[in-house]
């Protein structure tokens, strides 16, 4: 039992930090400093604890898996890796938020607290060893998301987006839960290992699977596809993204997405692993639709936030390519997927941070026109934005380039190994990546080659904002320039689950 608590240590610490932020705000209301110190310091603590726990419990190479609470919670290399990404995402979001929130009179403490609770949900997903834990964790992650989407209460768009997000999210959660029920009914267990074992036996025994299980698979896939915003289950994304306060949009585009991919890793790769050849085909179709539609619609957007929302759909598609390559037997696909998750988090949060910085003055829209002449007005901001956009496009030597290269390379290898459909998927991904350059670079063109509509003065940005932007840009370059050490960590995490 004490060991179980130890394994759960990072999670408990994260919950404590969230509560501490709440208490701090009660003790010294409305002050920014204490909230930032407690939340960021707490996150550093959680990160340190995650690392040490990962080392102590799961062993140095991370392939060892420790089961806690009778298998309901697991700690392995993947848990550690994903938890660190979540901590990073939330830390960046908190760093980028204050300037934007203050300009609109929105409180920081509740924002940080809700965000931290969402993080605990994501962390629980990454270590879930049981289908029920998985579901509870998922809800714990997305419920704060709904609150955040509607965080700007007096703004009609924010409320509208939040309501839509909430309604559709609940709908899809119900579908997902339905799928879990079917799976439980068919296999008689809710433990991930148990499900995996039962399915392996069923597959080995030959013959058709129970119809309830097939139906369950359909429900589960649908529920997950909604959470990662895969086409055709993406409808909520543009409205929720555009309506939310910009720092929230940044978070929503990466946090719940990586969280949902963690869900996929635990559920599909782990529990439903024996059926991988079957869900592979669905994943391929989802990936094609998701990439292509995301990019096509992004082309026509004139609002940068909305454009980034659709592009986030397209990036989901690229990540699915990695998943497909893994299902086709390439562990590199899984590595690529994990690398993509980290790289995308950094560069997308960076891009949204720039948008948020520009919107520091309340009332500034995120339309493309706002970016006209930014290169002259605020050159550093424009340069950083260009870096993030180049990375999102996939230009070397940025993180985005290597992320795309790895998933596509893995898909090509799978294609060479006989999975022709995955090979074709790689080709479609390359074409999509090329098409995406158009709408990303259009922003660059606006920033540097268009005259601004009105002569706005440059805005002052907080030191916190600049610090966060520098860290994000350095990571974007370093991950692309020296991916080696990071790939080792990714490889360990991938082997923990798919080895």
């Amino acid at each position, binding site marked *: 039992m004490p060991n179980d608590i130890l394994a759960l240590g990072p999670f408990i610490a994260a919950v404590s930090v969230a509560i501490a932020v709440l208490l701090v705000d009660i003790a010294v209301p409305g002050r920014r400093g204490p909230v930032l110190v407690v939340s960021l310091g707490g996150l550093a603590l959680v990160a340190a604890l995650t690392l040490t726990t990962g080392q102590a419990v799961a062993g140095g190479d991370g392939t060892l898996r420790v089961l806690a609470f009778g298998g309901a919670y697991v700690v392995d290399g993947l848990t550690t890796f994903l938890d660190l990404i979540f901590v990073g995402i939330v830390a960046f979001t908190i760093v980028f938020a204050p300037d934007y929130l203050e300009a609109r009179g929105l409180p920081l403490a509740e924002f940080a607290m809700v965000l931290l609770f969402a993080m605990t949900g994501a962390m629980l997903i990454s270590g879930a060893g049981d289908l029920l834990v998985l579901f509870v964790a998922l809800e714990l992650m997305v419920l704060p998301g709904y609150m955040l989407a509607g965080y700007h209460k007096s703004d009609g768009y924010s409320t509208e987006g939040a309501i*839509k997000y909430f309604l559709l999210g609940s709908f899809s959660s119900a579908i997902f839960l339905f799928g879990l029920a079917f799976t439980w009914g068919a296999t008689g267990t809710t433990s991930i290992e148990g499900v995996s074992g039962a399915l392996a036996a069923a597959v080995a025994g030959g013959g058709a699977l129970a119809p309830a299980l097939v139906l369950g698979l359909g429900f589960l896939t*649908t529920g997950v596809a909604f959470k990662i915003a895969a086409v055709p289950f993406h*409808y909520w994304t*543009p409205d929720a993204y555009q309506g939310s306060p910009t720092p929230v949009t940044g978070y929503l585009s990466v946090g719940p997405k990586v969280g949902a991919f963690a869900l996929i890793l635990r559920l599909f790769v782990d529990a439903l692993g024996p059926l991988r050849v079957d869900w592979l085909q*669905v994943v391929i179709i989802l990936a094609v639709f998701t990439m292509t539609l995301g990019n096509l619609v992004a082309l026509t957007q004139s609002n940068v936030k909305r454009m980034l929302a659709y592009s986030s759909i397209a990036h989901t598609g690229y990540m699915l390519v990695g998943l497909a390559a893994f299902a086709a037997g390439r562990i590199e696909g899984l590595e690529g997927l994990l690398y993509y998750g980290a790289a995308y988090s950094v560069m997308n949060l960076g891009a949204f941070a720039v948008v948020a910085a520009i919107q520091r003055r309340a009332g500034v829209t995120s339309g493309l026109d706002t970016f006209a002449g930014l290169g002259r007005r605020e050159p550093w901001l424009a340069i950083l934005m260009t870096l993030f956009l180049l990375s999102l496009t996939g230009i070397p030597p940025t993180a985005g380039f290597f992320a795309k290269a790895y998933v596509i390379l893995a898909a090509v290898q799978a294609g060479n190994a006989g999975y022709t459909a995955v090979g074709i998927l790689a080709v479609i991904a390359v074409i999509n990546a090329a098409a995406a350059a158009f709408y990303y670079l259009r922003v660059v063109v606006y920033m540097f080659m268009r005259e601004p509509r009105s002569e706005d003065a440059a805005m002052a940005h907080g030191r916190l904002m600049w610090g966060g932007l520098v860290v994000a840009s350095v990571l974007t370059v370093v991950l692309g320039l*020296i991916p080696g050490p990071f790939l080792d960590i990714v490889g360990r995490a991938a082997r923990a689950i798919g080895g």
Partner: protein
Amino acid sequence: MTLHQMLVFLIIALPLTGFLVTALVGRRLGLNAFWIPVAPVVGSWLVAMYVIATFHDVLPAGTDGIAVTLWQWIPAGTFTVDFGLFVDNLTAVLLVVVTTVGMLVHVYSIGYMRHDPGYWRFFVYLNLFMVSMLLLVLADSWLVLFLAWELVGLSSYLLIGFWYRKRTAAEASKKAFITNRVGDVGFALGIMAIWVNTGTLNIRDSIELLVGPASMGATGSLAFAGGIPVWVIALLLFAGAVGKSAQFPLHVWLPDAMEGPTPVSALIHAATMVNAGVYLVARANPIFASAPEAMAFVAAIGIFTAILAASIALTQTDIKRVLAYSTLSQLGYMFAALGVGAFTAAIFHLMAQGFTKGLLFLASGSVIHAVHDEQDMRKMGGLRKKLPHTYRTMLIGAIAMSGIPPLAAFFSKDEILGESFKLGFQWVWAIGILVAVMTAFYMFRLIGLTFWGKSRVDPAVEPKIHESPRTMTVPLWLLAIPSVLLGIALTWPGPPLGPLFGMEGEGLLGGYLKPIFEHGQEILGRREEAFQLAGIDGMLLAISIAVALAGMLAAWRLFGVEIGPIRGASRPALVASLTKRVPFLYRASANNWWFDDINNLVFVVVGGRIANALAWFDRNVVDGVVNGIGALTRRSGGGLARVQTGRVQNYALGIALGLIAMAGSYFVILGR
């Protein structure tokens, strides 16, 4: 990482730090901006010298260099590239030249650029160049080498166009960049070909895989392992060298590059960057040695460039242009040496040239500085007394360049000519002798017009002429030392140098570079022959000296002389009558053999027409199709966006339909 590996890294890291810090804070430092960029370069020089002096003591058995892998740059399945550095004897020689000249040019620039508003910016670029050039000679992988190759191109572009408000400078920088790009395409293709053949981009491994290990001697079946013949690879690599080292027909950018500040001309366009091509061929010597046809081509291009450029240098009136064409010509010598298989001689000439040409350029900068940015030698003359240090050092450089013993360039040039003759390339030798006459002539023409005779300086400027400050003259004298002594020091086979370094009988440099070139020479099947003063070598030596003296005396007769007791007046009338006797040749030389006009005709006029035709085709045919696709895409995108109605009910319905499709598809997939 061992101490030495760390030091090797430090050689690059120091100027890199200088570059970054200066780029960030330099603007605020004003006239103090030089400390941060200059100090690391001096430090880099010290570290490099220490590494060169001691690295042989720490080499693991069976290796001939220190390899440092900083990190794995590209790990993509079977395609891996390490970001690695490597120091062996060849790199060490280059390091000596690059860091020494680089350091002196940095010091010189402290004074030379003092009055320029872009003081700090200049040092930022200069540091960037140092980083790039050091990376180039230290690279252990073709890809890193290529990266550095492009980086020196970039920094060269920035420095040539440093005075970007000056139209000619901006145009020259573009010309240099674009001309280099032509060669770089070949180089990149060569690197790809190497990868296709060998599956690795490590320079040492790939060469071994390409032509067989050093012990195998002449190439076996491995030479065609990947399907691409070695001679193709050699020629592709050579294309890169032709661009960077400004050989015919890509030589046109170098003279124009003189639009940059003079320290830049000295550093980049005389002593370091232009040598990159020579280094490349020397580094890949086994590849070239496996392809005799490519070697002959290299020799032909080299010697042709040598005589072409020398003939142009005869009549130029801009002091820097004379030196620029002289640089071209001497680089031609180096490639001729590489082409005939005299690799050591080429590197020797590279060193001698690096110092001597660096000296001459810096001295010319001092002259230009003194006469208030005047570069036309017709408006100089009689500066001997007013610029004593500049005059003396430049005279030393000129004597060395002309090939008068015992100065450095005499030995190196003579070795190239002698080796060519003995290796059966008598035609290279014959042309080389002609070039030697011209070299001595144009060097003393330059000295005569600038320092001797009566002053033709603008009377308004005349009283203000003064010698340059110490930061400029001291580097001149420091460069004069190797220009004088290097030749003897590196070739003297007897005591005390030979025995001291354990290289008796073959000269310091020859013995030092033997491990690098013995592979290539083994493949070529050539033996080292002892120097015979009383035999063929002595005769060739005598001819070399004789032609050098002839060229020098001719220049004295036409343009005057004032060395100690030797006095002679210039004879403008004689010059005029001579030029009238060969009007075609004179005009050809003065107009650079019309290369710029030919390029203008081919690329601007004809090329422009073709481009216009292509543009029409592009606008009306290609764009039509693309726009059609684009419009189609947009329309479909817009149509898809219309699905986004904003009504939750519709969305929920969509999801429900999706769910049905999803479950259905699983039934299809699993219904086996």
